[in-house]
């Protein structure tokens, strides 16, 4: 009975996804991929999904999600599994792995030649692509003759005056604050894990707080803020800033001290079609030709080094995993945040209201 109540109560929220899955299921073999919508979904359709269906006859349906972790939890608790593949980035992967909500990846299928580095080869997930949270700078608002170098300058409101925006989340911002405070990008998590690390980060954040006009919440927001001149300096996903550059706006990306975030995809425990889900992962997220095409369509790149043999130097320098950019960034430690987010989130809310 409890199970029934559960299904009914959450059913309303996910009814859209459910009907999609049911439709696809009735027509031969199929897999359902939960995914973020928008341009990324369209790119996947064009480069991976349509050819995959043509070659294998397996129908692939994308179900839009913004909060995959909460939905994975709901599906596991109700044992009503609607998805085969789901995004598990940030704390999604550690939390889902710990709770036993995922199927292990069969690496003999997905990466038989062992091309992916460990960061993309997790027991329960493939690191499909990486994106970076970087600083976007309005070059026309920069003081004459000065070059903006990174987090130290973001914090330096005297030399670089003007409104700024950061994401409304402690994750990444504590890291950025530490880098501004002189910590090397490669050592931020050592400092954060030390007893005074979090205090030190919040103390540094105190300094920049008056210059933050708005704390952004959705990925499009900082870009729109930069475009409208509402802020001069913003953290934003690299691909979004590059979109602005394509629109001929005077905006520059600062890779220095950026946060490299891996977009993980996992197979959900109890998925209906695990075998085809593994095949799709190999087909889409570990085939250099397709990965290169994805990187050309959107500036998000795989960890598979083969793609840099296909892409030109010019194309490569705009990508988060290109060797030059990889060196100056740090990789977001999702284990750290899975463990500490609930505690630090509360402190963050309190700090923001002070």
């Amino acid at each position, binding site marked *: 009975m409890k199970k029934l109540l559960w299904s009914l109560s959450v059913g309303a929220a996910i009814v859209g996804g459910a009907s999609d899955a049911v439709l696809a299921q009735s027509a031969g073999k199929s897999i359902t991929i939960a995914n973020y919508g928008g341009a990324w979904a369209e790119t996947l359709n064009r480069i991976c999904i349509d050819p995959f269906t043509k070659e294998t006859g397996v129908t692939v349906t994308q179900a839009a999600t913004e909060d995959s972790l909460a939905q994975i939890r709901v599906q596991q608790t109700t044992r009503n599994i609607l998805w085969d593949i789901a995004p598990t980035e940030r704390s999604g992967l550690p939390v889902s792995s710990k709770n036993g909500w995922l199927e292990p990846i069969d690496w003999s299928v997905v990466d038989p030649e062992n091309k992916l580095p460990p960061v993309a080869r997790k027991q329960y997930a493939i690191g499909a692509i990486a994106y970076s949270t970087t600083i976007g700078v309005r070059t026309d608002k920069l003081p004459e003759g000065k070059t903006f170098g990174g987090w130290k300058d973001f914090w330096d409101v005297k030399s670089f005056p003007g409104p700024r925006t950061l994401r409304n*989340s402690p994750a990444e911002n504590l890291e950025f604050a530490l880098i501004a405070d002189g910590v090397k990008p490669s050592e931020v998590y050592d400092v954060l894990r030390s007893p005074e690390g979090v205090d030190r980060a919040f103390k540094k954040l105190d300094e920049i707080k008056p210059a933050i006009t*708005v*704390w952004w919440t959705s990925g499009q*927001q900082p870009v729109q803020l930069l475009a*409208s001149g509402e802020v001069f300096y913003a953290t934003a996903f690299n691909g979004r800033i590059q979109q602005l550059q394509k629109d001929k706006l005077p905006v520059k990306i600062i890779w220095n001290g950026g946060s490299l975030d891996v977009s993980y995809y996992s197979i959900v425990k109890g998925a209906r079609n695990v075998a085809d889900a593994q095949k799709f992962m190999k087909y889409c997220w570990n085939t250099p030709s397709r990965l290169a095409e994805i990187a050309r369509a959107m500036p998000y790149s795989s960890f598979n080094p083969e793609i840099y043999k296909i892409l030109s130097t010019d194309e490569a320098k705009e990508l988060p995993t290109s060797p030059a950019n990889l060196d100056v960034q740090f990789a977001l430690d999702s284990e750290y945040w899975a463990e500490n*987010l609930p505690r630090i989130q509360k402190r963050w*809310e*309190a700090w*923001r*209201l002070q």
Partner: protein
Amino acid sequence: MSDGIPMPRDGTVATRSKRAPLSSLWLLAPAAVLFLFVFILPVGEVALWSVQGEAGLSAEHYEAALGAGPYRTILLGTLQLSFGVAFACVLVGYPAAYFLASCRPRNRTLLLLLILTPLWVSVLVRTFGWIVVLGREGLVNSMLIGIGAVDGPLQMLYTRGAVYIAMVQVLLPVAILVMFSTMTTINRSLLMASRILGATPWRGFVHIFLPLSAGGAINAWMLTFVLALGFFITPALVGGPKETMIANLIATQITLTLDWGLGSALGMVLVIAGFAVVGAIALLFRRVTRLSGHGGSR
């Protein structure tokens, strides 16, 4: 209105409209079933989560939600903001509703349409509109700088004021409609009678129209207040660095920290606070609201 002053001495009209015969209760069944499954059961489940601790029943989530700290501050801020927004909606909407109720039917339809049109546009789009208007390089600032009224751009966006403006704009049609529907039931012959008996138009309004329409104003206040409590997108998009609504906090707990116990407790506190405020207002003004809907026929 055409049949003079209908004033039934025994109040039979009102009694009939108040009590539906028991045999027609089944008409409620579809709504009741829907309400049971999409409201009562889920909210019941959420209530259960909110009292579940690591080991059995526990008030820990409520302690976290209501104890001194950011959650209580945000909750109180949400209540305060909703209170003010609802008040502003009534204040701004009342004259508009009055005007609507007094104009000729053909004009009225057109005006109603104009008031309803914004409701068809998504809240997100309407909120983005304010970003264009109030931004640093937005319409108002460009104009002010253009005419030399100010030297640099004023910070209008990302302030509490911007949240007020945007939320009032979104909720205003609702407030107008509620007050308008009460005002149309008011028997205008009473006003005419007051004029015949020598009252000024203003006095007639204060002594007849205002008391008869106050119930509608209070209902409009309560409805907009409850709607404002759940606002989410607007404060996040145009609010300042400190503008967080309780709904944003609940979303963080559900999707980000996965602390569903705390999220549920915050949700329950919001529901209960909403009921408490609305209940208190209804009780406080029960004499006023009793008048409404009868249009002075009693």
